[in-house]
């Protein structure tokens, strides 16, 4: 890692450093060592079922931030194929006009299978971007399944995107995401039934006991409804209300990454597998280690 080049804003050094983080060769503790004072960037996640328009919406959000002269990093996460381990990362296709700005860094990431590993790397990447004075970070991730909920939990704000033509994700997961979301967007308002979808969602939210997020009807294609969305985003950044279920998820995620990053974990798993120790003994052993730290 060439720290001088990195600090001077060299893109290739930044990119290479992200690769090191992705491989687990560099941790946020190392980053903190090089950068004593770090301003935390505002981290937004945009999530929702495949094809609802997350990338198209991202483009408008990015443009809006660029117009305000913000330094922006985008992390677009897509699942790796469980069969080949490869991945097709295509979110960039939708990002056209903003691609040339020096204020935008856009990186596509594959989940690479190991549950837990990617989200913990993502928070290290966020740390690096913050250290380099990036002000806004946007994480695009598909909102189905536990891993993605965890990706969302490393961010401060969550936008959940729905569309009239989107296949519904599993009810339970959707309920979980709706509880976490700070903003719900119904995209493709140019299509029939978008209005209907928005009304359904508002109704469902009224039934929940938690304070519910606002629902916005937009069209990324026609660029409609964004003014209100941007105002709401600004408003939230100004006074973010803490959300209990989100704190719960963040805590359990932090707990989990502590566990999986624990250096003796492989040995403990081996001992468990060969029944040399019980789960309780394993927990005690791990706790003992954390105490010394």
């Amino acid at each position, binding site marked *: 890692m060439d720290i001088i080049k990195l600090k001077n804003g060299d*893109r*290739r050094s930044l*990119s*290479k450093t*992200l*690769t090191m983080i992705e491989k687990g060769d560099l941790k946020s503790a190392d980053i903190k060592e090089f950068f004593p004072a770090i301003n935390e960037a505002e981290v937004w996640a945009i999530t929702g079922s495949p094809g609802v328009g997350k990338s198209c919406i991202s483009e408008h959000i990015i443009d809006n931030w660029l117009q305000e002269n913000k330094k922006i990093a985008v992390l677009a996460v897509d699942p*790796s*194929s469980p*069969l*080949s*381990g*490869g*991945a*097709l*990362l*295509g979110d*960039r*296709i*939708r990002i*056209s006009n903003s*691609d*040339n700005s020096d204020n935008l*860094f*856009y*990186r*596509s990431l*594959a989940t*690479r299978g190991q549950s837990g590993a990617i989200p913990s790397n993502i928070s290290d990447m966020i740390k690096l971007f913050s250290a380099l004075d990036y002000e806004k970070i946007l994480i695009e991730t598909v909102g189905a399944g536990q891993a993605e909920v965890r990706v969302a939990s490393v961010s401060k704000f969550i936008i959940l995107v729905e569309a009239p033509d989107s296949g519904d994700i599993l009810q339970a997961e959707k309920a979980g995401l709706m509880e976490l979301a700070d903003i719900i967007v119904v995209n493709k308002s140019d299509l029939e039934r978008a209005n209907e979808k928005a009304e359904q969602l508002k109704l469902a939210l009224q039934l929940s006991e938690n304070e519910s997020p606002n629902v916005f009807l937009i069209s990324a294609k026609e660029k409609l409804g964004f003014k209100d969305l941007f105002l709401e985003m600004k408003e939230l950044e100004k006074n973010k209300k803490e959300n209990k279920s989100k704190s719960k998820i963040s805590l359990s995620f932090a707990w989990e990454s502590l566990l999986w990053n624990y250096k003796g974990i492989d040995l403990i798993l081996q001992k468990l597998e060969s029944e040399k120790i019980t789960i309780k003994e394993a927990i005690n052993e791990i706790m003992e280690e954390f105490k010394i730290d």
Partner: protein
Amino acid sequence: MDERLRIVIAKPGLDGHDRGAKFVARALRDAGHEVIYTGLRRTPEEIVRTVIDEDADFLGLSSLSGAHNFLIPKIIDLLISSGCGDVIVFAGGIIPEIDRPRLFSKGVRAIFGPGTSSTNMNDFILLTVERRESNSPVGCGEETDWRWN
């Protein structure tokens, strides 16, 4: 090879067909690589920036329009001046035989015509990785006559 390779597939030029590029992208994904697809009509500057941001090992350029004679050399020049001469460049699409020697001498290491099998592409990728690991020149800005075909 346990390292995951990152491959950018890009389409410079103005033609609006990307069936071939998408086929290549899927085949490489199925071979276990991480493929970043840029979409249509990218400028050389956009493509090079994508290679940098994505920390790509390979850049695959698909051209159907005849723009390759001008655009591919331009992209390679930009890569080299941005310090990305180690990136391995290959091309695909419709590139007539008479245009090829110039592209090869410019640093393109393979040209795959329509109907190329994915096995053929994968063999190329594995071989170039071997070269890279043994410190033999293979990047677009490295001095060598070596090429796949």
